[in-house]
């Protein structure tokens, strides 16, 4: 279902437009893009990460190098790629390499700062399921599976997650662990990552349609910022555990008119991701 969204020319202020002037998806994409400020090399996943990363490249992270698992490095897509293997990510890229090189040298070799993942289910420690709902052998819903997510979660220096909140997706127990997060807690996860030589330190941000979470010292998700128009009640109604809250809960700054213009006119004029 599409959310109502006001015209782009709705009066915005320096700090952004009123909550009625943008959709929850747009807020989520903008919040995720802003988290990429200062990052150098980002591994881009299909779907929402794709638009968030491309928005970051046009705003807060102009020197961001986009790596697509399909084998493109340093992409400058001239249109929003629908799939992560779109020809627009090749034309004008720094390099087009085989997937062997991409996964062996770029990812496993430790060159990727941020891996950007979506998921069907996530738990409080940032462990991710994108394989099945139900039992593996007799799934209720067969999902796509790992793709590159599993090795991204292990080898990217840190992992960003972008996904919509719901009781079905933010669950106490995930049905299948496709990509490891903070396992059962930060201490054990750090030990295992060290002992097994993982390069990544795991998940650091989860951006949803309602707010922004980081991970506290115990390795558990903590709500640090709530999007304009969202309420704590909505947050609790769409999460399968009692969420930890930051001592001072921030309000996410609204999308700026420029961010909205880039999404609507340049990145996703058909509204494929933002509806």
């Amino acid at each position: 279902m599409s959310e109502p969204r006001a015209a782009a020319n709705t009066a915005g202020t320096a700090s952004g437009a009123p909550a009625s002037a943008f959709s929850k998806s747009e807020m989520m994409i903008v919040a995720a893009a802003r988290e990429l400020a200062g990052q150098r090399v980002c591994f881009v996943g299909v779907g929402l990460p794709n638009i968030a990363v491309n928005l970051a490249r046009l705003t807060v992270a102009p020197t961001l190098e986009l790596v697509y698992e399909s084998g493109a490095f340093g992409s400058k897509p001239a249109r929003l790629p629908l799939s992560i293997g779109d020809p627009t990510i090749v034309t004008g890229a720094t390099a087009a390499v085989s997937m062997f090189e991409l996964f062996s040298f770029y990812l496993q070799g430790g060159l990727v700062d941020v891996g950007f993942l979506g998921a069907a289910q996530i738990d409080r420690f940032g462990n991710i399921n994108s394989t099945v709902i139900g039992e593996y052998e007799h799934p209720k819903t067969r999902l796509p599976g790992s793709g590159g997510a599993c090795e991204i979660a292990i080898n990217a220096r840190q992992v960003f997650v972008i996904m919509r909140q719901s009781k079905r997706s933010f669950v106490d127990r995930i049905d299948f662990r496709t990509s490891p997060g903070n396992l059962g807690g930060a201490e054990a996860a750090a030990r295992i990552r060290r002992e097994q030589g993982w390069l990544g330190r795991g998940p650091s941000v989860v951006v949803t349609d309602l707010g922004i979470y980081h991970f506290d010292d115990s390795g558990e998700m903590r709500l640090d910022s709530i999007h304009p128009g969202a309420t704590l009640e909505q947050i609790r109604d769409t999460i399968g555990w009692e969420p930890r809250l930051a001592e001072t809960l921030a309000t996410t700054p609204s999308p700026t008119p420029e961010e909205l213009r880039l999404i609507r006119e340049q990145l996703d004029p058909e509204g494929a991701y933002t509806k």
Partner: protein
Amino acid sequence: MSKVMSMRDAVAANVHDGDVVAIEGFTHLICFAAGHEIIRQRKRDLTLARLTPDLIYDQMVAAGTARKLVFSWLGNPGVGGLHAIRRRVEDADPAPLELEEYSHFGMVGRYTAGASNLPFFPLRSYFETDLPKANPLIRPIRSPFGDEMVYAVPPLKPDVTIVHAQRADAAGNTQMWGLLGCQKEAAFAAKRVVIVVEELVEEAVIRADPNRTVIPGLIVDAVVVEPFGAHPSYVQGSYDRDNHFYRDWDAIARDAATLEAWLDEWVYGVDGRAQYVEKLGAERVAGLKPSGQALSGAVEYGVYR
């Protein structure tokens, strides 16, 4: 010696019931033309290997050619699920489908081990996940040079690998550009290799740019010239991905009867790719042309006598 033949002959000679078949190409250069010919020849009990089964394997599974999938990401990229495959997996409708599941890096590693005649490929993946439980062929091993643990995956050696490319000569020396996926690894790993190209070129064209050669004729069994053979996927520099078809497929495949009617019309109802392209119509084909040119610069190899 020329290896050029028709798609019908190439498939008849190289794809047999029960084979492990890899039609590779990551989003780019997916040989739908070969998949459709395999459906028309009613091959059965195939094991289909591909990182991303994509629409082509959804169609081949729906047509009853396959008993098993070996894969790493099972979806319609940028759109959603693969409904014919999901019906087989979730509801055994009309029959169960065996799955052997890896990650992308695991699949690439499997072809690499197969191509280089190694007993396994080691990688830093799968730690603390449920994937090794779901697939016992993903196994932990200890480094012979220390205490470090990594995971190993077994070699994958397809009976036949089918690769779509921009151009090849009659001997099968094949050049491609754009996203290269793991076609080189999958071809070197295979017992037989079928090359399908947009354009057949003289040997001199290949020799003028040897760095662009991905697959040598040495390992190639058949060369098929089939323009537009990768539609609805794409060929860098020739035609764009038909994203509308990828979106349309979602509705077509959701209903078994609609899908069957689509196969009747677009696969069984045509005698080959040329008729399929004609049926698509000039307007649709023209609409998929790149919006402009982006020529690579030529490089100097030099003459050394």
